[in-house]
Every structure is written in C-alpha cells, then in structure tokens.
C-alpha cells in the first residue's frame, strides 16, 4: 500500500544526510513501527510521507508511493488533495496541534470542509461519529468544548478522531503517547489497536520506545543516523536483536524485570 | 544563539550608520556655517549648496546636519528615559506582582488615559517652555507607560521559568535575579520596542517643534525647521522637501533595524 524506495533527504544547512536511502513497505491493514533516537531520521521520514518537508531547504530523491500515487515529487496542488484525504497525521503534543480558539468538534470535522462537499450538518454528523469511535464519552458535549477544557488524553483522542474522520488509507502516528501519563498511554494504544482491527486502517507508528511498538506493531524498522539498521517482526527483533544499535535501544527501555541493570558494578 | 544579519537589519544599520556618521561629523564641521546668512536667499539645490538656501541665505544642508543632531539627541534621551524608567516599573510590577503591581499599573493606566500630546503640553508649560530639557522631560514621561506595559508582561512571563525558581532556591537576591538572570532575556523585546519608541520620539519632537512648543532658536531641530519651511513653501519648496526627507530617512532606517531585530527573534523561535 505504502512503498518507500531508496529515500534520501538532505537539508541544505547540514553536512550529513538526514535520511540516507531507506526502503520500507506497509501492507493494507498493517501497523508498522519506525523506531530510533531523536536525530535518527525517523521524523524526517514521516515528514516526507506527510508532505511536510520544507522542499526549498533540502534536496531529496527516491520514491514514496501511496496506492501507486507519488507522494514525494508530485506538485503541491496535487499533494494537498492527497494528504488530507489519504494520510491522517497525529502528533506528539496534542496541546500544540490544536487551534485554541476553535471548538474541538469543528476541528475534528475541519478536514471534511476542505476535502468533501458535505453540508455543515453532515460534517457535524461525521465528526460526532468519529468522536464516538475514539471512545470520547458524550461527544455532543465535547464537540462544543475548546481545547483547554479537555485533558491531554481526551485531546489526543480528539486528534485521532480528526485524523480518521475522513477515513484515510494511512494513519501516521508521530510519538502519539510520549506526552501522556503512563495509564493514559495504555488506553490510547488500546484504542489504536481497536481502530486498526475494526476499520482495517494501516498505520505507521514513529517512536523511540520499542516497548510501545511491541504492543501495537506487527513489523518494526529501526533507524540510526539516517539508515535502517534492522527490520523484522516486532517480537523477533525485540527478543533477538541482530544489530548492536537495536540491542542498545532495547536495553535502554525501562522494564519491570532485571532490576539494577543500570547500576554500575 | 547564532545571530545572523538579515536584510532588514543590514539595510537599517547602513542607513542609520551613515546618518549618524554625518551627524557626528556635523558637531565639529559643516560645509558652511549653519547660522551665517551670506549665501544668497532662496538658492535652489546645486553642487555648492546641496539642499539650497533659505530666506535668510543660510545653507540648508548644514542646517539639516545640525538639526539632525538636535533631533537625535532629543529623541535618544527621551526614549532612554522612557525605556529605563519603564523597564524599572515593568520589572518591579511584573516580577513582584501583588500590591506594588496593582498600585503602579493603575498609575500607569492613568498616565495612558491622558492624550499623550496633552500630557506633554502640560509638562512643558509646567517646566517652562523654551528650555531644551522641557521637551525631553515631557516626551520621556509620555513614553514611560508603553515601555512599562511591555516589560511588565515580559518579566511576568519569565519569573515562572524554572531557572528563576532555581536561582531563588540558591538564595540569589531579587536584584540579582532581576538584573543578571532576567534583564538579558528581556532584550529581545526591549530592543525592538526601543527602536519603535525612538521613531515615535522623532515624530513627537517634530510635531511639538512644528507647533512651536519644542526647541527654540538659535537651536534648530528638524521639526522646527519643517515649521519654518512651511512659511516659504512657494519660494523655496526644497527647504521643506529636504528636511522632510531627512526625517523620513531617519525613521525608515531605525524602523528597518527594529523590523530586523524582530525577524531575528522569529528565527530563533
């Protein structure tokens, strides 16, 4: 469904390539994880898919094909249509991703206003449906709220609702749980799993935490310094990492077993 | 924080720099004696007299140089009074809050409520018109409230930063927190505000001198000269034109610097 072939991205003001030639595929209904530290190029990869690359400030090559359509080289006008429709994005910090002066419900339905010819009433109907499907209690009431009236977890649910209201073929999740409390994190992950199961939506999850990926992704790709260093089934990679960098990344995860692994001698 | 010059800043610095240079040279040397009335009345601009001469036969270019000096001096000292007092008021109210804040800011509101021109007139008439410092004092007072307001917001937002909490825990005095920790962080707001204030001061001085309550002869500021030029708009239009353009250029240059500084802030964000 999504095919990335030999993607290179280099920012003009940097010496090193941010992404140094990666290839990745996501099949229909699959959740793929892209893991790595900050600065590993995982966010730049996501930006390339979402069409958020500042094209004038970087050089890029390779292909990104979504259902056969080119996402990397197509002109802006084409991209704008594609992105709202086909790719939904959920960012790390829901507080910053929302317009503080606009009602939450309107923001959920906003993408419909741009990309469909639905009437206001129909859009409202769709938005409420989406909000119900992300398990926001009492969507009618939350529709009328402003972002500051909601908790971080509720806002992230609303963001997910906004991303899926138009039923895109790919949902791009950039550290969707990092800014949230642990107990809320678990709920959001469960919700994403449910959406994937019920709607068959493909997802790309970007995170620095492989433990999060274990709960969600069937397949995982590990990035370091702009390159893919390891790919495979999440459980296989987690249990038996081949690459030393992957091993470090897994070692760094705080877990409930092997207490004292960070104690020096 | 890498500071890179942007186009605005560069252009502004060049324009303002050249004008400053000419003005400073003008303190010691001008092409002609600015007060001498012996160069022939109403000579249009030529290579001998770049800006022509006036009704008394004085060289306008030399007078504009001197006048710029006066205008610059007045504008700089006014805006400095406004900035210094305003920053102090803003720092105290924004940082401490509470009763001091309530009292000082209500006072500030009262000052703002007066039409600024009326306030300036009042001060000039109290101090006695015709003295150079009465204009400075009057305009300085007018500029305090806006600086105080801007700086108060800035100090209030900075005081909750964790590094301030930490400094307080270490036992740093309020004075040290205000001046060593906070003040440098307010420069990004203070400097652009200073340039805007400077331009307003140039304009305000010009209007007051134009109305005859600013500087008095033999001192001449650009505003004063503009009011003189008005009387001979027909006989020597170049007088008003050249003086007016100098004011515009001065404001334009400083305005560009202000714009450039704000652009820098945006880039950093």
């Amino acid at each position, binding site marked *: 469904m999504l095919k990335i072939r030999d993607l290179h991205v280099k920012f003009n003001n940097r010496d090193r390539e941010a992404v140094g030639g990666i290839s990745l595929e996501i099949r229909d209904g699959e959740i793929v994880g892209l893991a790595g530290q900050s600065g590993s190029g995982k966010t730049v990869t996501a930006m390339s898919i979402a069409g958020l690359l500042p094209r004038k400030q970087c050089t890029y090559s390779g292909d990104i094909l979504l259902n056969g359509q080119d996402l990397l080289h197509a002109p802006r006008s084409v991209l704008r249509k594609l992105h709202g429709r086909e790719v939904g994005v959920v960012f790390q910090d829901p507080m910053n991703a929302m317009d503080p002066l606009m009602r939450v419900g309107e923001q959920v339905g906003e993408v419909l206003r741009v990309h469909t010819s639905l009437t206001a009433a129909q859009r409202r109907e769709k938005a409420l449906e989406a909000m119900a499907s992300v398990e926001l209690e009492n969507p009618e009431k939350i529709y009328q709220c402003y972002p500051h009236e909601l908790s971080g977890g509720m806002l992230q649910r609303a963001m997910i609702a906004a991303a899926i209201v138009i039923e895109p073929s790919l949902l791009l999740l950039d550290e969707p749980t990092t800014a949230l409390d642990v107990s809320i994190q678990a709920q959001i992950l469960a919700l994403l799993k449910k959406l994937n199961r019920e709607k068959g939506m493909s997802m790309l999850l970007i995170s620095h935490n492989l433990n999060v990926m274990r709960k969600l992704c069937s397949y995982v790709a590990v990035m370091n310094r702009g390159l893919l260093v390891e790919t495979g089934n999440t459980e296989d990679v987690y249990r038996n990492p081949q690459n030393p960098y992957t091993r470090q990344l897994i070692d760094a995860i*705080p877990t409930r077993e092997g207490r004292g692994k960070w104690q020096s001698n | 924080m890498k500071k890179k010059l942007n186009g605005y800043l560069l252009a502004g610095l060049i324009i303002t720099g050249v004008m400053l240079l000419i003005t400073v040279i003008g303190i010691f040397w001008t092409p002609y004696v600015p007060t001498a009335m012996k160069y022939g009345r109403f000579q249009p601009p030529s290579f001998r007299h770049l800006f022509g001469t006036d009704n008394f036969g004085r060289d306008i270019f030399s007078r504009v140089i001197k006048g710029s000096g006066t205008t610059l001096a007045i504008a700089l000292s006014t805006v400095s009074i406004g900035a210094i007092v305003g920053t102090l008021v803003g720092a105290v109210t924004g940082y401490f809050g509470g009763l001091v804040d309530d009292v000082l800011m209500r006072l500030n509101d009262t000052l703002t409520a007066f039409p600024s021109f009326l306030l300036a007139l009042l001060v000039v008439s109290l101090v006695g018109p015709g003295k150079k410092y009465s204009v400075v004092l009057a305009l300085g007072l007018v500029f305090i409230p806006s600086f105080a307001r801007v700086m108060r917001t800035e100090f209030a937002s900075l005081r909750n930063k964790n590094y301030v909490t930490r400094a307080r825990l270490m036992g740093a005095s309020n004075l040290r927190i205000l001046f060593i920790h906070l003040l440098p962080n307010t420069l990004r707001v203070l400097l652009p505000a200073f340039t805007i204030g400077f331009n307003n001061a140039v304009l305000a001085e010009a209007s007051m001198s134009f109305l005859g309550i600013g500087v008095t002869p033999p001192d001449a500021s650009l505003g004063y000269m503009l009011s003189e030029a008005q009387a001979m708009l027909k006989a020597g239009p170049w007088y008003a034109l050249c003086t007016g353009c100098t004011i515009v250029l001065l404001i334009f240059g400083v305005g560009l610097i202000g714009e450039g500084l704000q652009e820098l802030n945006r880039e950093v964000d």
Partner: protein
Amino acid sequence: MAEQLILEVQHVYAGYRDGGIFSGKDSYQEVLHDIDFTVHQGEIVGLCGKSGTGKSSLTRVLLGLLEPTQGKVIHHAGKPQIVFQDPYSSLNPMYSAEWSVEEPLKIAGKYDAATRKRMVHEMLEQVELPRECWTARPDELSGGQRQRVSIAAALIQKPRFLIADEPVSALDVMIQAQILRLLLQLRKDLDLSYLFISHDLNVVYQLCDSVLIMNEGHIVEQGAIEEVYNHPKEEYTRQLLAASM
C-alpha cells in the same frame, strides 16, 4: 540499609489560597493531605502518580516554596536541590553551561574566581558533559546535555539530597538510560539521596529503593520497591502497575 535520616515529612497538609486584595474572594484549596514519609541516607525514593495529583505541590513544600498549613518538614542534611523535567526552561537561555553551573557558587560568595572555575570544571567532568559543550548556550545543547548541565548546577554546592522532578520524561529512551545511569553513579560517588518523581513506574522500578504512590493529594501506599510492586495492597496501585506493563 541506610540509617541516617535525610528528610522527615511529618503529617503535612498544604494548599493554595486564592484571591488578591482587589478580587474580594478568599478561598483555600487543600492539595496535600496528611503526607508522611522519610528519606534515609543513600536512599532513592520514588514518587509516583498521575499528573495533577499533587506531586509538584509536594516538591514546592519540600523546597520551602509553599508553606504547609499543618505538619512539619525537617531537612536533616541541609537544603535539597532540584532538577526539573523540562531542561529548556531550567537553564537560562542567555548564558553558557559553565555560567549556569558557576552561578550558585557566585551567589554563595564563598570562593574566589579561580576556585570556582576549578570546581565548575570538576563538576562538568563528573556529569560527563563533553568539553566542547562547556561554553555552549542551552539552545546549542541536546536535551540530554542540557539535563547534565542542570544536574551539575544542582550538585555544585555539594548537597546531600536531590529532588529529581521527572528528570527524564522529556528524553528519548536511549538518553533517558544514560541520565539514569549517571544519577546512579553520582549517588555512589557523592553519597547522595534522591526523591525521584516520575509517572513511569518502570523507570521507578529500575532506579528506586522504595516508592510512594500518590493519588489525589494522599500517599495511598508506600514501601520497599519489590514489596509494593509484587504485593500491592491498594486497588489504585494495582491499576497503575497494570497500566504500565
């Protein structure tokens, strides 16, 4: 384990008073109820709970920024220092790493310039900040490096007790592990005790000797780490533990 007491918190209640002289209202909202615990020398005590449960208010009480309405806080080993979560706002953006670490010494006014410089350099080496970063300003440093500078600034006056308020929550796992290793190393080298505040129960499990579980201003459960994690007594603790598996 440890014997000597570092911190005693005895039945502390605290809250915030709302209103000013012009607003006319005057209401008191209690956010901490009957907080009671101790920290011993060399011990790392974890403080867990969701956001908005009073963890930061407790920090403010321990630092002396908020007066308890009842109860007592006794510091047996001098004033604590703190490392905040957000390394962006805990360092002054206008000054270099060296400056930020030296500032507490300047304020204390006990050392001459040469001694201060030597102490600062020793400290920066101890937190393993690369030498080329010493003169860098915060925006030229990475999140992990900034947190190292914050730790150095907190430890420069040789406190015995450090409050770490979510010090690794804003960092990615790799950097997080490095900072946690550093904290453990520093505890050994400098004989420190920590109150380690975190919403991540796994991090607390790896790092701490004992744990306080907080909910809505109460400490609902406390004890040795293995005890609480393996045999939680409260339903709330069980839920929290389940959520972070």
